[in-house]
């Protein structure tokens, strides 16, 4: 080990220790500025505020309230960017048919372990997605946890098995579109209701505001659902898990199948 390596190692270690000190011990002074602190105070007070519902998202989880209510438009555009990438991939793989019946997979031990693990992963994903408005987590988190099951089945079994149990790419694409449609429906439902009733309402509205008296109910049969947050989380989880599953099916398709599809496309043209 030369002197240069030693210097680099010592420098990086010192950097890390200093940064850790700065972050954990607040060596940078009082971290948030005074104005910023007032913004966070607003969110912490009003994320769940039954006494003043007009400025509240009615969800105890402050992160979810910001993601889906206060800054909901940002999240919708983020989702749009993500799905643009998925749509581009789906377009590249259009017309590809999975034919090859290879069923090799890993050893029986791994297969059995996967069979045990997959249901529990799905249960955790559903719990994270459904409780997104109550505990840390939410739609994207739940969806990406559920997507791990597609990956596990692809690796331990095969693409053919995944097709056989019903997760073919057309079905996943349809379910993903269903999730996206329910995202759009949730974001405009209050607006449509207002139009039908002749009351002023807004796109992405959750609770009733001062200037518009209608809003989504924050409770349903004594369960706290926080208006639109719950529906946003559920539909985002569906869309994200299906989109990731689709992506994994696409990248594990055999090259021969893709070449066949390309040839067919050229013949048509």
């Amino acid at each position, binding site marked *: 080990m030369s002197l240069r390596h030693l210097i680099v190692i010592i420098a*990086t*270690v010192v950097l*890390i*220790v200093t*940064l*850790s*000190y700065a*972050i*954990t*011990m607040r060596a940078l002074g009082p971290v948030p500025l005074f104005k910023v602190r007032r913004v966070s105070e607003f969110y912490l007070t009003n994320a769940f505020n039954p006494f003043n519902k007009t400025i509240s998202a009615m969800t105890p989880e402050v*992160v979810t309230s910001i993601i889906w209510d206060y800054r909901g438009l940002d999240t919708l555009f983020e989702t749009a960017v993500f799905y643009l990438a998925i749509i581009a991939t789906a377009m590249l793989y259009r017309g590809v048919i999975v034919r090859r019946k290879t069923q090799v997979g890993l050893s029986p031990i791994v297969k059995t372990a996967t069979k045990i693990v997959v249901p529990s992963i799905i249960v955790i994903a559903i719990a*994270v997605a459904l409780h997104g408005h109550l505990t*840390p*987590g*939410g739609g*994207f*988190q739940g969806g*990406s*946890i559920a*997507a*791990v099951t597609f*990956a*596990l089945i*692809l*690796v331990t079994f095969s693409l053919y098995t995944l097709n056989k149990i019903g997760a073919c790419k057309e079905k996943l694409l349809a379910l993903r579109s269903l999730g996206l449609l329910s995202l759009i429906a949730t974001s405009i439902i209050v607006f449509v209701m207002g139009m039908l009733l002749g009351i002023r309402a807004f796109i992405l509205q959750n609770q009733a505001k001062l200037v518009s008296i209608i809003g989504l109910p924050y409770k349903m049969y004594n369960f706290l659902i926080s208006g639109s947050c719950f529906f946003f989380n559920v539909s985002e989880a569906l869309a994200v898990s299906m989109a*990731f599953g689709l992506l*994994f099916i696409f*990248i*594990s398709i055999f*090259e021969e199948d893709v070449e066949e599809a390309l040839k067919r496309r050229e013949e048509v043209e």
Partner: protein
Amino acid sequence: MMGLFILFVSCVVSILALVATYLAIVERDLLKAILYSAIQSTLFAFLYYILIAPDIVLVYIPVAIGLYPLLMVIVVKKSERFEKP
């Protein structure tokens, strides 16, 4: 006292993650490099948990430990396993 403990743990985890990153860069066998990278991701997930960001942890665990290594493994399978010196 609690602050010092968090400082100590985050220092150790960061340095371990740095070691894993270095090994991932140096390693010529790309499959092993992916494993080192996954170890680094695991340590980062711990770090997020220590720094009280549970929402990020929940998205980081499936993406960085489940989905990203699998994506990379498939890429390696479709190309070459060993990096040429």
